[in-house]
């Protein structure tokens, strides 16, 4: 499905798995709405690449937005926090 200028591809990372929601969402959607849609999609097994999970919890997840550039459409990424890099 083509993505309009006001829309975005929603990419989700959960439990080490990753996938795109088949349908685009509004690029200006509120973070809370994005997390809610992502949760519902994972719960229902609607994200190709991510196993359905009735216990999905995205409460502490981050919503990142990347404006369209080159041939890439707007993207919204839902992901866990990544505070680490150095210390082990």
């Amino acid at each position: 499905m083509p993505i309009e200028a006001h829309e975005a591809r929603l990419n989700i990372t959960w439990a080490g798995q990753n996938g795109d929601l088949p349908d685009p969402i509004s690029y200006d959607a509120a973070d809370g709405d994005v997390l809610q849609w992502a949760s519902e999609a994972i719960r229902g097994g609607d994200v190709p690449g991510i196993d359905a999970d009735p216990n999905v919890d995205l409460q502490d997840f981050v919503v990142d937005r990347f404006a369209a550039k080159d041939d890439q459409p707007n993207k919204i990424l839902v992901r866990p926090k990544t505070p680490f890099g150095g210390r082990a």
Partner: protein
Amino acid sequence: MKKVTVVGVGALGSHVVQLLRNDATLKVIDHDRVEQKNTLSQFHARNSVGKSKVQALQQAVNFLWGIKIEAVPHKLVADNAKQVLGGADLILDCLDNGDARRVIQGFVRDQGVPCLHGALAADGQLGRVVWDEDFSIDDTTAGAATCEDGEHLPFIGMTASNMARAAQEFLKSGKKIGFQVYPKGASLKI
């Protein structure tokens, strides 16, 4: 060769340094010392335990490949940022705390220096390699733990490889590519 400064030479940075050794003149900054547990997930050997991480890495890189790197065994703070980060063509943020990341972000945005950030989620669920213009800093979540037993070493290596690849591409062509890295082996170009 261009000058690349790597800030933080723990889990990510120690591997990035050895992967970028052929592509740039390297400077490494870290105030930490090598602990026994670090040898499970970082490019630091048992005979380096107790040594400064940057000096241990400097010695290792020189011993293994005859390559000289500059070592700065100091903590990066706002007061010394210009002194230790100045002169770099590219800065690689491989840190583990939001405060120090903010010092880097403030410096690179003020000075217009290209900066690539590397970041890992707790439990090895996600690695991120993101250019500063798209990078948001995540502070540590209470109770979250990173790799202390070496379990995530291959995943840390994958993320470090993607970071080195993005840096290499920038040094070669000026093109900025970023990645999200997943433990099952796939990387998403962003």
